[in-house]
């Protein structure tokens, strides 16, 4: 079974700036980690390989430093790692990102399953998985909490707001996973050392994908950030209730009763 896992390096919370001219996030200089949902996608891939054999390729698009995220995937146990890194990809929205990723997937070659995290912790759009599936013309199942494989068909438990659905499809398919699907393994120190010392992360540019068009990055993105601004959350003055716990409790209940809320 050929599995591709798409991962993204995201800034650690609170460690991010933005470019006031383009309105895009500035990722360079920020310390990066593997997006949390994506670790669950890696783990799901590892478990499928353990049960059914095959190879796993981790794929990421990002600045050169996203190499670290792929090293982390290697240390967890994926077989190959590919980083698509090109200045022309900078500032991509989800459409331009998915399109670039779809070209990289085609260069990787045949696949049975593509796994992605449900969403990233920075953009939080949950759009790249479905859009990648569209560009590859494969069926998609988002919000997976269980994946099982029988022959060439895959059965997925999908968590939607109405409850759960059990879906079945045949290879190839793209699946995005919920965090509850598994507990990602923590690689032992020697695997981490090995991932940095002995393993290879293939670095591809758009040139390597044979692409010269302008479907990439900021240029290839239909959405533009018009403005980024801070919004002060302000309302009227707060009334602080003071006294012993039981006193303030009584005061609050009285206030709520007067407003018909209690």
């Amino acid at each position: 079974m050929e599995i591709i896992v798409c991962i993204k390096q995201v800034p650690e919370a609170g460690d991010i700036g933005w470019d006031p001219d383009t309105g895009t996030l500035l990722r360079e200089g920020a310390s990066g980690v593997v997006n949390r949902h994506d670790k669950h996608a890696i783990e799901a891939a590892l478990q499928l390989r353990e049960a059914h054999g095959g190879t796993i390729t981790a794929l990421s698009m990002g600045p050169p430093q996203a190499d670290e995220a792929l090293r982390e995937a290697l240390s967890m146990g994926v077989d190959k790692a590919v980083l698509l890194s090109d200045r022309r990809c900078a500032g991509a929205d989800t459409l331009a990102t998915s399109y670039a990723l779809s070209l990289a997937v085609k260069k990787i070659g045949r696949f049975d399953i593509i796994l992605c995290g449900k969403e990233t912790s920075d953009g939080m759009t949950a759009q790249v998985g479905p859009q990648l599936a569209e560009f590859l013309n494969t069926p998609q199942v988002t919000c997976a909490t269980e994946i099982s494989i029988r022959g060439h068909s895959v059965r997925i438990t999908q968590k939607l707001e109405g409850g759960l659905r059990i879906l079945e499809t045949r290879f190839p398919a793209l699946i995005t996973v919920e965090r509850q699907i598994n507990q990602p393994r923590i690689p032992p120190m020697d695997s981490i050392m090995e991932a940095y010392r002995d393993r290879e992360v293939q670095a591809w540019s758009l040139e390597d994908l044979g692409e010269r068009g302008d479907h990439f990055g900021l240029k290839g993105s239909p959405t533009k950030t018009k403005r980024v601004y801070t919004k002060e959350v302000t309302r009227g003055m707060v009334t602080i209730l003071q006294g012993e716990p039981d006193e303030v409790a009584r005061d609050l209940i009285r206030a709520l009763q007067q407003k018909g809320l209690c």
Partner: protein
Amino acid sequence: MMASSNTMARCGDIWVFIEHRDGNPARVSLELLGAGRRLADAINVDITAILIGESVSELAKELIYWGADTVIVADDPIAGAYSTEVYTRIIADQALKRMPEVLLIGATEIGRDLAPRIAARLNTGCTADCTELDIDEETGVLVATKPYFGRNLMADIICPLKRPQMVTVRPGVMELKDRYSDRRGELIYVDVDLREEDTRITVIDSIPSSYGGVPLEEADKVVCAGIGVGNREGFELIRELAELLGAQLGATSLPVDEEWISEDHKIGQTGKTIRPKLYIGCGVSGAIQHSAGMINSELVVAINNDPRAEIFQFADYGIIGDVNEIVPALIRQLKIAREAVGSDAAI
């Protein structure tokens, strides 16, 4: 190659995708019919609802009462259960034929599954999880506002050249407008024309959620537990308070991460957006990750032992103290107040 360029001539309708279950529309779809009116008026177009399902003609009429001028109805057994590929085919085909200016979709799990796929097929932009919508007076372009990455940042996103301008909108952020049963509109029934590749996924089974009660987005009262509750015992006290008040129980990230309560109860940027009449935050600091999901609450009560906690910046009533002392006191005093009312009634 990407799909052919679709820079469309102005100006089509505002479309709203109608999500429904067993003939009952999702509240967010009705919210969007209401929110769409202001946008439609600003660019002088109509509102079209797009409804897909099996035996949905009653619902189609209902959508007129909620504000649709036109309803495009795809009524077919094959579209009875939600399917990404079937729904994408129908909506994308109709959009190519009728050229809407804007397509609004609720940012539910289904909406977030469907919208990006349609956007990719139509080669247009889709802004996820918006909380405000406006029309730029000068250009007539839709300005979609969304909270941006963690801190108190907001971003205005536009899609100036491609059509339709797609956005998903969080449930609960737009006000539900009134229903008028004397409104008139047009129903357009369309054929469902699928290709083989649209039915690659089979639904084997559907298991309804065990989560009972009023959905958080629709609750009048919400009691919310934050990091300050400390441990599972503290959390159970918050649950007791919620039950006594007849409120729904919400949580910030920590109680969900600790698995004291399921993800369905999470409020904030990565959870639900609520607008109750009463919100009581217990040990909630009020960081934007959470407050983005509750800032439209009518009355906010904050209980926190840190007087500098952000939540006091926007609370109406504040109690500075330990949640594990204040909440038991509230439970005690509520019980006393209830008994007093009970004995009054007996007299």
